[in-house]
């Protein structure tokens, strides 16, 4: 009985049914799409991680003895030994020659696998990617000859040798990337014979790539521990162990991090749509009070009424959930490959795209369960409310404030006052609708604040310190064979000459040039930084920069004036604080190299930050100036230009740089394009989720508007009979809708922006997608306002039109 009544009520309250159905479908779609995408992304990451390389970790700086221990270690499943044998000396090319030996098979790489020919066996054979040979001006064919200048282990004299290409290996397709040569590196393999000939056995330094047993049985921490244990067994220092975290985390862990994030988003979506569904039923109950009262008068019990509403909700769900599940699976099924493919094209990963497996039965069942549960929970209160209605009260019930008898009112009444009176009559309904609407918009604005601050421009800004170009000096610190490459010697005749700077200044559109100074220094301070006489550089910072440091400070404190008087310094690599044995306020005796002069300088590290300057030690300008350097110590210049002339200036600077092989050029557009893809891959899917949330919220507004108009059909008809014109009617309804819109907008602008800023701060602190600067989401705000206003007006227009189709007479008579 209740079942058939529920069915007929579903048909009778068609608009409510449709709205509830849409809300449920959207919720299901959203949750399913989220789950499906997450599964797809996880599987894709696994595929991708394996494509890059399946090695578990690598050990560096190994001796032959350690390598032999490793070969016999019981935990090693696969092992590959390689050593960087020499650096290639060819203009600005970052090239190196390596020797590789596969000891235990099993390690694969996405690139660098032989595609043609074979690995080098003879002393003058070489194999590598085609681009390596092309960079050297040779033909990339098997059997071709190539002459290479190189320095064994990056030291010693430059040697020249002619090689024969024995094989070609696969490589990344970087042709689509707009990145300077200096940002890329190229490697090629040579034979063991060559290594043996040129490098004494004792001088050889090995790296080992390993896979340990138990990839499928261990969790992430366990497998990391196992690798570190192996390293400890052979006496490899922890600092020289590098774990292939990307691969390990994807193979060992079912994506806990992803699962956490996805569950959090899913929870928010479920709570939110629950509120909308609740609000639709709640508003429905208010209008159905009389009908429910009649049912009760006819003998329906509380249980009956509850069951009636419950069945109504479940019928709609049973029809809507499958539609949502199908949509939620199909949308990512078709869209995600497109996005991922695009991502692959612009990233540095070379792999053929394969559609990841995206279907997961547990996800499907979980989504269905969550949605049904959400509908059930949101029905609880309306069910209880309906059950409580007493038949007498219900049939007399009018939608007005029950206790109020008098109303002060006004002498004259206008359209505006009429709308206001109606809204205050349904205070509860008005508030419930406004709260849900506001919630979706607040959510939108909050996340928009973060998304809008996620800008590659900011990342570029940080790298480029706000400028458009940066020209950096390519220098060495400890080159014993070619001391002319060392910074103190380059400084004797610094290429950033007055003439060079003038030339740049004279390019049309160049607005400002800023110089960075660095000077080499050594110390007997007991730290890895200065081990074996190694040098570092020190640089200067301004009072303004000190303020910036203060914001991101990790340790110590910065008092600029005190630092100037006490020779204070800022350590800019906080992550290495312990490794480098740095102590706060301890004297560090430095020797500064100014050309051939040696200047003693004692500094105290007074603060530590992450990522904050040209050098690892920064001293205040005053301290730097007190060194009274005789040579120009400029190492970088930052150039600001007129944006309209950017491209022109870039090509001119590029030309100037090409003739000077000590310069490297960094430009803003390249920095931006490096980060662009990763940002948009997060940003746009998030916006899609937000948009769908906004649509669900909108269902709620539509429902409230429809209910408020349908229930007043007769009243509105009567108003028309006594002279309310169509235009006035539309204006009145639009005015009522505007109140919702205005309230919602107000909440979004205030709460939404506050939350938005808080979320941004969280994102900044947790280094989420490199957000650093808050950008107020202007366009998002405008779009939201326009969407709300236009959408609400459209709803009013359509409902008004539908109502007018019914003749005035019928409407007035409706209640008689």
């Amino acid at each position, binding site marked *: 009985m209740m079942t058939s009544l529920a069915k007929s009520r579903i048909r009778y309250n068609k608009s409510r049914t449709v709205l509830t159905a849409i809300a449920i479908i959207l919720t299901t779609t959203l949750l399913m799409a989220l789950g499906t995408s997450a599964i797809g992304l996880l599987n894709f990451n696994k595929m991708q991680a394996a494509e890059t390389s399946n090695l578990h970790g690598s050990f560096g700086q190994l001796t032959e003895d350690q390598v032999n221990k490793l070969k016999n270690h019981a935990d090693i499943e696969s092992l590959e030994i390689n050593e960087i044998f020499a650096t290639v000396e060819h203009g600005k090319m970052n090239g190196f020659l390596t020797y590789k030996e596969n000891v235990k098979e099993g390690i694969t790489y996405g690139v660098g696998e032989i595609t043609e020919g074979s690995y080098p066996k003879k002393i003058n054979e070489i194999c590598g990617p085609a681009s390596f040979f092309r960079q050297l001006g040779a033909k990339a064919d098997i059997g071709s000859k190539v002459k290479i200048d190189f320095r064994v282990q990056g030291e010693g004299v430059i040697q020249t040798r002619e090689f024969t290409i024995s094989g070609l290996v696969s490589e990344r397709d970087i042709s689509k990337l707009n990145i300077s040569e200096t940002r890329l590196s190229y490697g090629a393999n040579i034979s063991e014979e060559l290594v043996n000939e040129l490098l004494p056995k004792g001088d050889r330094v090995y790296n080992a790539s390993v896979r340990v047993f138990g990839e499928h049985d261990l969790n992430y921490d366990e497998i990391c521990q196992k690798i570190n244990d192996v390293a400890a067994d052979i006496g490899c220092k922890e600092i020289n162990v590098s774990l292939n975290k990307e691969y390990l985390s994807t193979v060992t862990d079912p994506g806990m991090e992803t699962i956490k994030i996805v569950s959090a988003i899913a929870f928010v979506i479920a709570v939110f749509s629950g509120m909308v569904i609740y609000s639709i039923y709640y508003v429905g109950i208010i209008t159905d009070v009389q009908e429910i009262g009649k049912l009760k008068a006819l003998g329906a019990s509380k249980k009956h009424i509850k069951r009636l509403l419950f069945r109504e909700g479940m019928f709609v769900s049973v029809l809507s959930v499958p539609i949502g599940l199908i949509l939620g699976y199909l949308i990512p099924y078709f869209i995600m490959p497109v996005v991922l493919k695009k991502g692959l094209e612009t990233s540095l990963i070379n792999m053929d795209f394969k559609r990841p497996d995206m279907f997961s039965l547990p996800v499907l069942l979980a989504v269905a369960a969550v949605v049904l549960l959400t509908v059930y929970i949101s029905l609880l209160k309306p069910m209880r409310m309906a059950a409580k209605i007493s038949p007498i009260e219900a049939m007399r019930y009018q939608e007005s404030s029950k206790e109020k008898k008098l109303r002060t009112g006004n002498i004259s009444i206008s359209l505006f006052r009429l709308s206001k009176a109606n809204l205050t009559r349904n205070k509860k309904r008005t508030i419930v609708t406004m709260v849900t609407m506001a919630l979706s918009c607040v959510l939108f604005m909050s996340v928009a604040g973060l998304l809008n601050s996620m800008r590659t421009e900011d990342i570029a800004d940080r790298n480029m310190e706000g400028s458009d170009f940066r020209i950096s000096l390519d220098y060495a610190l400890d080159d014993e064979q070619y001391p002319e490459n060392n910074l103190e010697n380059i400084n004797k005749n610094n290429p950033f000459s007055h003439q060079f700077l003038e030339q740049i200044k004279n390019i049309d559109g160049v607005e400002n040039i800023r110089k960075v100074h660095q000077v080499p220094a050594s110390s007997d301070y007991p730290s890895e930084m200065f081990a074996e006489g190694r040098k570092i550089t020190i640089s200067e910072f301004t009072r303004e920069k000190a303020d910036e440091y203060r914001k991101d400070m990790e340790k110590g404190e910065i008092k600029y004036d005190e630092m100037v008087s006490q020779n204070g310094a800022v350590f800019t690599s906080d992550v290495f604080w312990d490794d480098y044995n740095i102590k706060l306020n301890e004297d560090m005796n430095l020797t500064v190299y100014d050309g051939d002069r040696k200047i003693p300088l004692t500094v105290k590290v007074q603060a530590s930050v992450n990522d904050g300057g040209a050098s690892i030690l920064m001293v205040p300008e005053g301290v730097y100036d007190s060194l009274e350097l005789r040579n120009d110590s400029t190492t970088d210049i930052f150039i600001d230009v007129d944006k309209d002339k950017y491209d022109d200036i870039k090509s001119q600077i590029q030309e100037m740089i090409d003739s000077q092989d000590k310069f490297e050029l960094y430009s803003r557009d390249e920095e931006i394009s490096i980060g662009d893809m990763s940002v948009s891959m997060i940003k746009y899917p998030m916006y899609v989720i937000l948009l769908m949330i906004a649509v669900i919220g909108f269902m709620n507004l539509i429902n409230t508007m429809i209910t408020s108009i349908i229930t007043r059909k007769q009243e509105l008809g009567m108003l028309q009979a006594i002279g309310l*014109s169509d235009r006035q009617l539309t204006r009145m309804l639009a005015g009522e809708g505007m109140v919702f819109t205005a309230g919602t907008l107000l909440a979004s602008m205030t709460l939404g922006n506050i939350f938005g800023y808080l979320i941004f701060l969280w994102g900044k602190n947790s280094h989420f997608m490199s957000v650093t600067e808050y950008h107020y989401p202007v366009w998002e705000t405008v779009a939201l306002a326009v969407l709300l206003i236009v959408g609400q007006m459209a709803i009013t227009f359509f409902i008004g039109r539908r109502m007018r189709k019914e003749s005035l007479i019928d409407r*007035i008579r409706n209640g008689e």
Partner: protein
Amino acid sequence: MDIILETKDLCKYYGEGENLVKAVDKVNIQIQQGEFVTIVGKSGSGKSTLLHMLGALDRPTSGQVWLAGKNIEGFSEDALAKIRRRKIGFIFQAFNLVPSLNVWENVVLPIGLDGRAVDVDFVKDILKTLGLDGKARNLPNTLSGGQQQRTAIARAIAAKPSIILADEPTGNLDSKTGDEVMALLKFSAKKYGQTLVVITHDEDIAQMADRTIIIEDGKVVK
């Protein structure tokens, strides 16, 4: 006396072919300024349809309605709405008050919709005449049926229309209250010089009128 309301061959048909219903069929009536006319007929005789067309609520299939010397045929919906709030006062069987407005606000509503200033003394006088002077701030749901219908009458009179059209104004009231309301309606229409057209099937009310039009199957028979 001037003719305030006139119909010329007024017809309203519904459906077509075999299902054609002639709700109003070639009705020609004239109503004088200040007259009290009742339209009497059985349920379904077409009297309400006729009243709706007289009040510019509904458009005829053919024929014309002349209101104060003007043919309202071809007027736009908005123009008709304006005529309704200036020239005509409606009273329905269901009291049709706006529940969120108090008695006073309900009464001055048509004036407000027209953007005119409220003649406070005039409205006070009407409320006093109709015995509602103590109820101005009450909300409709606190009033009895008779009081609600008297409020509806006050609303019909307040905008100073030329004609008051009432569709079974006492239909929802008990006979004693109905008589009282009817007497008040007649009295105030006279007092403020308004033409009164009342639809009824109540013989007693018909007796009170200056003239009675009897309608049967959409045709005026007397």
